């Protein structure tokens, strides 16, 4: 008898295969020089956004809660790793050693904050959780934008006012320069590393969804009270998901910060969190592969269609509204189901969810 492959496993391997093919194709293009410099500059950002989208999808699609603090976690990852890389760039000159450490530091710092903020906040649900994560992201952005840190022979100096307020000695060096952020970060993010991390992210995400933990998290999403009544520790599983999301967002932040010479906290604003949400919604809530594809397509689209660049943000807004109405309104969804048999698979996933909700 032929052994049946678990559909989840098949799905994940199709995604890995797709990613591998795209990766090889891009590598060939890079080596033969058949790639525009514009697209080349987008390769790392595409991976960063794809990782962000996959990580947010764990919270939105698997846990069923909305987090608008994605940019905040990214900011923590970016800042902590950029400080580390700046400190050691003269002592550890090999990026192969330096960068993996930076990635782990960035991810862990973000995860730590994710758990610290998660413990009080995850008692909340729905709109409250969303607004608190948004508030948290804004706090992170504002604090980093007002932070001045430098060091000299006398030790570390921290101020919330200005550079002059630090009172650095003659040998002092600035680490974080308020709204100007961090500069001089070594350019360690290459496409190969970014793609490898995206690959690892996908493996983590698929295995998470397909694990006992992942199933417990989904049971909380589908019916919190029933899940609680069969003994699932809601806070624990929520915290695990939230921490994992923060960790991956932090890693994306590391890639992001090591792709630019200078880094400002103002980059990690509310719009960044919304952008990631647009990727998740367009790719399909709960679909990991969809998130990656949506992130790649939407990041490249404005570059290829310069004329629509002006309407890019407006388009994102319309995507959010139309996607939600089409997948959540029963009349419209049934219309699609009747008329587009092919789309059925895509839509039914959401249907089973809302039907239960309606009961």
């Amino acid at each position, binding site marked *: 008898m032929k052994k049946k492959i678990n559909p989840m496993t098949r799905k994940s391997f199709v995604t890995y295969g797709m990613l591998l093919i795209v990766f090889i194709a891009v590598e060939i293009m890079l080596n033969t020089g058949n790639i525009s410099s514009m697209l080349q500059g987008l390769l790392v950002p595409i991976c960063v956004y794809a990782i962000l989208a996959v990580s947010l999808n764990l919270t939105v699609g698997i846990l069923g809660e909305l987090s608008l603090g994605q940019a905040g976690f990214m900011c923590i990852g970016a800042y902590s790793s950029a400080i580390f890389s700046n400190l050691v760039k003269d002592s550890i000159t090999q990026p192969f050693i330096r960068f993996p450490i930076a990635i782990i530091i960035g991810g862990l710092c973000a995860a730590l904050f994710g758990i610290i903020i998660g413990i*009080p906040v995850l008692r909340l649900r729905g709109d409250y959780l969303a607004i608190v994560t948004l508030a948290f992201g804004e*706090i992170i952005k504002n604090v980093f*934008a007002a932070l001045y840190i430098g060091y000299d022979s006398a030790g570390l100096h921290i101020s919330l006012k200005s550079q002059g307020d630090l009172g650095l000695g003659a040998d002092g060096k600035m680490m974080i320069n308020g709204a100007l952020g961090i500069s001089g970060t070594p350019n360690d993010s290459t496409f190969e590393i970014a793609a490898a991390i995206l690959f690892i992210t996908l493996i983590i995400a698929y295995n998470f969804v397909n694990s006992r933990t992942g199933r417990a998290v989904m049971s909380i999403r589908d019916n919190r009270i029933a899940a609680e009544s069969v003994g699932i520790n809601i806070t624990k599983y929520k915290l695990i998901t939230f921490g994992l999301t923060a960790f991956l967002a932090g890693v994306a932040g590391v890639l992001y910060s090591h792709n630019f010479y200078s880094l400002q906290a103002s980059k990690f604003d509310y719009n960044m969190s919304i952008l990631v949400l647009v990727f998740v919604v367009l790719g399909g809530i709960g679909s990991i592969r969809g998130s990656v594809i949506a992130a790649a397509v939407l990041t490249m689209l404005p570059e290829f269609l310069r004329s629509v660049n002006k309407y890019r943000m407006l388009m994102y807004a319309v995507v959010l509204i139309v996607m*939600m109405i089409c997948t959540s309104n029963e009349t419209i969804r049934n219309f699609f189901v009747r008329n587009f048999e092919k789309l059925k698979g895509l839509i039914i996933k959401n249907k089973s969810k809302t039907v239960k909700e309606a009961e």
Partner: protein
Amino acid sequence: MAFLENLINGISLGSIYAVIALGYTLVYGIAKMLNFAHGDVIMVGGYVVFNAIVKANLNPWLSVLLAVVACTVLGITIEKVAYKPLRKATSLSVLITAIGVSYFLQNMALLVFGEKPVTFTSVISIPKISLFDGKVVIKGETTAAIIASVIIVVGLSLFVNHTQKGRAMLAVSEDKDAAQLMGINVNSTISLTFAIGSGLAAIAGVLLCSSYPILSNTTGAMPGIKAFVAAVLGGIGSIPGAMIGGIAIGIIEILGRAYISPQLADAIVFAVLILVLMIKPTGILGKKVNEKV
């Protein structure tokens, strides 16, 4: 004296937050959704008044009236187009849609009204009040904001508690299905709520832009979110709560800006939100709602 002046400025800003928070609290109480786009309706109101005065040379009172009408229509349209199809959907879908609407308004305003921020000329003609031999000056805008918010809160409380439409709103907020069985038209009640909230947003927009005259497409976003914080602090669904929460947030923000750090004022307000939700999630005047299985 500087402290007194900061305190008065805080109350003034807080009064504006209170008017915005009323819109959140009404919609949250009745439609059970966080209308993310509420802050952006404020911005639209501001732009309508600005264009009516500068481009069409209308009288300030008439422009304010025009803005109230425009925002009311906008609020009803948003509800009908974006939120009504999702009445039975999960709260996650509704929330994402609301974020979409907010983003849509911001970027539409960018295209329609231009990228460059404009300077709003105050429409308020109340004279300054000088206290303590001119050591403390209360601007006309401050007086106007405080008076307007008090009138609105009292008026709205009377409306909700003593008119048929208002009591219908209370009934819908209590139990949508039961209200429908009692012959209340739930859809028109929800539309009315959005209309009132958006009309108030227009007034809040005028007050906000008169005090803080830089108007751009994101003018409404931050005050909107802070007003939501105010609504949560005061107890969501409660009209006097919105007033108390609004003024508290306004004072916290202005004092934080003056005595702690100008850059961290927003962060302090948000920290208050997190604290409130940790300690007393129902807010100061909110009711505790038990969850039914």
